[in-house]
């Protein structure tokens, strides 16, 4: 389900609105994921504090959303643009790709919470497709 020009425009337009709040969205989404899907905590067993408002969670949420922003700017070639990140996830982090969908769901929930007027069903569809393609690009180097 590759991204049409309409999808790309929708994602970029939404990002221009939500981008300024990327850090907040990232922290909130990541924290929610750890709470709502506790199995995801297994990847962060080495962290002292996994509480949603905690400093490590906030910092990592910021890192994640920063990467999402980068992906938006590289939307025309996600596989090429995210090659290094894919290598990192494939060989070092080894996060099961099923979790990409879980994180995407939580980002979508937070976008819905913070920008209900902008997150129309059509924009929701394009964003869902974007995250699906992002996940595929991230999983590119896994095997």
């Amino acid at each position, binding site marked *: 389900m590759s991204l049409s020009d309409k999808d790309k425009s929708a994602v970029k337009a939404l990002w221009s609105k939500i981008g300024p709040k990327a850090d907040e969205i990232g922290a909130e989404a990541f924290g929610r994921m750890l*709470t*709502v899907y506790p199995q995801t905590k297994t990847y962060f067993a080495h962290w002292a504090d996994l509480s949603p408002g905690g400093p490590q969670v906030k910092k990592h949420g910021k890192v994640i959303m920063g990467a999402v922003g980068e992906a938006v700017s590289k939307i025309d070639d996600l596989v090429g643009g995210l090659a290094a990140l894919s290598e990192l996830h494939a060989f070092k982090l080894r996060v099961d790709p099923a979790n990409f969908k879980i994180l995407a*769901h939580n980002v*979508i*929930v*937070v976008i*819905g919470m913070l920008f*209900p007027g902008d*997150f129309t069903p059509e924009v929701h*569809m394009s964003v869902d497709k974007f995250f699906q393609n992002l996940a595929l690009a991230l999983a590119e180097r896994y095997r």
Partner: protein
Amino acid sequence: MVEWTAEERAAIQGVFNKLDYESVGRESLTRCLVVYPWTRRYFGGFGNLFNAEAIMANPKVAAHGIVVLQGLEKALKNMDDIKNTYASLSEFHSVKLQVDPVNFQLLSDCLTVVIATRLRTEFTPDVQAAWQKFLAVVVSALSRQYH
């Protein structure tokens, strides 16, 4: 049997108290049909589902949204035995409607997103966790009678 804490029960009831069935039902089903367009396969008799505007304005979509939420209310009222409460509904979806159970999760996710847009910061991580646990039990119960 599923165990529910007092906090979880309160959270789930709290979400239901704030639900406008007509508005939330309509938008959840609309989102499902727009975000996952292949789900339209199950609604051949609904008339015009060709684009987001048509789906949003479709009276059969609106009516069905309410039906779905009324079904969920049944689960709420029988939280300690959703499995058996939904036995005939599951059989109905399997034998009569022939819906692939994957779709239950798709609609479930859309419903969660719509609730997030309505409740906003009241939809805290703990409320979301309880709500999604409730939906997971519902989805599981609905998927049981597939043979």
